[in-house]
Each structure stands twice: as structure tokens, then as C-alpha cells.
């Protein structure tokens, strides 16, 4: 059952230095599965994620032959309809909780805000839902966290709060844009396993955007590799080591390994033809 269908997505920015094409004809479809979008900076992966939620402001422009979510035409939906979608049906988790959580509001207030304003739930019920959400991301002392400000939480805790906040309305699709890149390596594993659990038990669709190919391959079912605004390869995660496109192979091989040789790391020989 296809949750999201995107055909020929293009994102362009009209700057004074000329037209910049961030995304150039990306197509993919997503069911209730996990799709990883991998690319380096400038590949257009973040823009692709934001386009689904129509979060790109002028001078950026989104065009697509088709962009459909559960039967709803995202290209033709009004801003009001998009607002109704963002949150309850499609949620987004971003990289650094320092920048995505409101620094002057207590965590509890932010968690309960959506519930109280959008769903018109009573304060007591909102509070119990918030506590349940925090427990779902394995925060052991939810009452303390509710009363804390974002800067009082560690990076990993902040990101878990972010995930909890996004999952309270039980969305169908979660777009995670580099959710663990700002975290320490030991914390990354924890946060990923929490995310893994939640996505499985709730049967959500997940788009996982990252620059880390190996991480995405371990975590997702399918992987899209992007380069300069285009998809250069689409493959199942388990087939990653048998990737055919030279860019994907290059990305896999250029990372240093513990216990690997001291020889110069194989570097990517970028071929202009890949951008076509």
C-alpha cells in the first residue's frame, strides 16, 4: 500500500546569481517501510524531505509531476490543508534539538501544546499523554523532564524529546533529517534503537535522510543514493555491498576502518556524467 508517491520532483531557487537547481527530477514511492536517502552536502536530500511537507519558502519553488500522500495531492493542497497534515499525519525530526526545540518554553509545555491547541484536550489528559510519550522513548524520569528547559537536557535526551513530541499525534509518515548526526557515537545507537522500535510497533513509514551510508543501510529497508540533485542508485539495503553505481561504491570505500590499512584512502573520482 503506497503511502507516498513522488514523481519528477524539482526544487529550484531563483537567486541573483542565476537559477540554482537543488533537486532535479527525483522520483520514489514509499509504503509503510523505511526508506533511506543518502547523499553528501549539495545532493538535495534535505530539500527532498522538506518538499514533501512543502516547507520550502520563496525564492525556492517546488514542482513535480505528482506528489501524493495517501490519496491527497500535496502539490494542489492549500496551505490550510498542509497545516492539517503536518504533525498529525506527516511529522519531521531534525538534526539538532538545540535548534528545533523552543529554548524559552519548558519541555512539557511544548509537548502538550499541540495536544491542547489542535486536539482540544484537557490539561490533565494532555499531561498524561505527554508522560506516556516520554516513556515510549525510554526516558526514565518523565516528570522531571516535563519541567525542564531544553538547554538543561543532553543532546541525546533532547533528540528523544523531539521524537516523542513528533510521535504524540501518531503520524503515518515520519521524515527524519539527520536525526543522530549531532549526537555522540554511543548515544546515537540508543536513539536509533528507540526510533527503530517505535517505527516498527506503530507501522509508520519512515524517510531517513543522512550522509552516513553505512548507518542508513543498517537501519532502512531501501536506500536512495543522491548526487547533485538526482537519484543515482536505488537498492535494497541488504544489497548495498553489491552496489553497481561507481558513486555508491566510492562512498562505501572511502571511509577509514578501525584496523584498516594505513594506505591512502580510496577517494572518489567524481565523474561529471553522474550528474545526468
Amino acid at each position, binding site marked *: 500500500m503506497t503511502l507516498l508517491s513522488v514523481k519528477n520532483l524539482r526544487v529550484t531557487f531563483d537567486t541573483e546569481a542565476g537559477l540554482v537547481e537543488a533537486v532535479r527530477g527525483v522520483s520514489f514511492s514509499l509504503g509503510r517501510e523505511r526508506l533511506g536517502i543518502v547523499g*553528501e*552536502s549539495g545532493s538535495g536530500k534535505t530539500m527532498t524531505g522538506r518538499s514533501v511537507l512543502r516547507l520550502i519558502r520563496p525564492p525556492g519553488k517546488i514542482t513535480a509531476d505528482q506528489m501524493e500522500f495517501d490519496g491527497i495531492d500535496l502539490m494542489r493542497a492549500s496551505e490550510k490543508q498542509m497545516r492539517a497534515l503536518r504533525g498529525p499525519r506527516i511529522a519531521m525530526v531534525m538534526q539538532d534539538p538545540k535548534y528545533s526545540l523552543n529554548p524559552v518554553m519548558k519541555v512539557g509545555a511544548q509537548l502538550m501544546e499541540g495536544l491542547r491547541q489542535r486536539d482540544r484536550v484537557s490539561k490533565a489528559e494532555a499531561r498524561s499523554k505527554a508522560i506516556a510519550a516520554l516513556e515510549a522513548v525510554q526516558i526514565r524520569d518523565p516528570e522531571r523532564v516535563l519541567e525542564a528547559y531544553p538547554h538543561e537536557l543532553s*543532546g541525546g535526551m533532547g533528540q528523544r524529546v523531539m521524537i516523542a513530541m513528533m510521535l504524540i499525534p501518531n503520524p503515518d509518515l515520519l521524515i527524519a533529517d539527520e536525526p543522530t548526526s549531532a549526537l*555522540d*557515537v*554511543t548515544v*546515537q*545507537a540508543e536513539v536509533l534503537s528507540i526510533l527503530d522500535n517505535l517505527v516498527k510497533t506503530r507501522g509508520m513509514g519512515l524517510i531517513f535522510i543522512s*550522509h*552516513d*551510508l*553505512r*548507518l542508513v*543501510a*543498517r537501519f532502512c529497508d531501501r536506500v536512495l543514493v543522491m548526487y547533485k540533485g538526482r537519484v543515482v542508485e536505488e537498492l535494497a539495503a541488504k544489497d*548495498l*555491498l553489491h552496489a553497481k553505481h561507481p558513486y555508491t561504491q*566510492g*562512498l562505501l570505500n*572511502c*571511509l*577509514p*576502518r*578501525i*584496523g*584498516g590499512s*594505513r594506505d*591512502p*584512502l*580510496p*577517494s*572518489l573520482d567524481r565523474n561529471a556524467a553522474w550528474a545526468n
Partner: protein
Amino acid sequence: MALIEIDNLSVTFTAQGRQVRAVQNVSLNVNAQESFGLVGESGSGKSTILRAICGLAPISGGSIRINGKAIATPRGKAFSRQVQMVFQDPYASLHPRHTIDRTLSEPLAIHGLPGTDQRITKALTDVGLPTNFRFRYPHQLSGGQRQRVAIARALMLEPEILLLDEPTSALDASVQAETLNLLSRLRAERGLTFLMVSHDLAVIDHMCDRILVMQHGRAVEELSRDALAHAEMKTDYARSLFAASADRMLEG
């Protein structure tokens, strides 16, 4: 006698009446032409040690000696010809309003060194940048290119010691590979001594001969590269760090 001797170093910051002990009693030695790695997570104090060497962080205890002599406070021009640093964020370590030419010629001007033109062209070629990039501004370069300029700048005064603060963390994987290769080549060509900081165990393993694992401002365990490769860690923290890093490697 080691080139860099750090003895019981402590760094304490005072902010709004509270004291933050960023580094507590850390000792390490780096031999000439060796590559030494400092690895740890955020808050471990690893970058603070580099900043303390440069005089950018206040030393509250212990000593630092270079070539057997205590370092001068303030550091002075002689120090800058011995020790230079490459910073983490290529977007923040180059002055946004100066051309590459200005950035590279400044150290020469400060020390009154002649031959600016040839030195700049040679520096650009040494780091693999085309010479016609000379009058570009930083925002006209990619992250990897900016980091190359930062490396070129650090080498303008021909120091013996290069301090590297997470030099590739902000770069894409493929650009990281190129940058690490460049650093290795320059080190071999010029006989440099590296003191490198990273949170990425794989990068440290690739680049360094000996490693110190840090946590919460303290030294946890010192390892040789072989010990790391064979997972012969003695402390639990070093083991958990290794497990979390190795976990991200695909089998094969």
C-alpha cells in the same frame, strides 16, 4: 625527550560564578614526528587541551613543555613558528571578508618573511588547490577547499607541530578521505608532528600511532594503534566507545 610534554594539565573555566573543570590532571607525551590522537565524546576536554597549548584556554594547573622548554605566556612569535593549528569548522576558521591571498599572506607579513608571491603559489599547489583560486573569498569555496586553505595557512610558517582539532568532522565522507590523505602526505613530506583530536575512532586509527581516550576531562586509557586494532582495551569506557564505533561498520 619528547617534543611535547604535557604534565598533569588542568583547565578550569569560570562562567557566571560557576567553575567548569574542562580538563583534570591529564598527562601525555608526543615524540618528534609522531602522530598522537586524542579521542572522546563531547565534553571530554580533548579540544580544550589543544586550546590550552595555544593559549586560548586558561591553564589552572600543570605544565606544558615543548622541546624541553616551558611555553611562554603570552605565546609570542617564536611559538607561532613552532606550533600551528587547523580548526574544526572550515566555515568559521577563515575570515569571511579576506581573500585567500590575504589569509595566506598575513602570517608572512606578521613575521616579515619575504617572497610572498612564490610562497603563496607554492602553498596552494602543495595542498592541491589551483593557483587561480588565489583571489577568491571563502564563500566561493566548498568546505573541503576551505579546509585545504586552512591547512595551507597553518603550514605557511613551517611549524614543527600541527595541532588538528577535528579537521574533517564537518566534511563529507569523500572529502574527508581526500583531506586525510593530504594530511598524511604533508606529514610524511615535511616530517611534521601531529596532535590530532577527533570523536571518530576510525579516523584516529587511520591517522595516529598512539591514542589517548578521554572522558569528562580525564584521561581514561592510552593505547597503541595495534592495541586498538585488536580491541585490546583495558577500561570499560574505551571498550564501549570501540563497540559503538565498530557497530557502525558493515560486515565485510
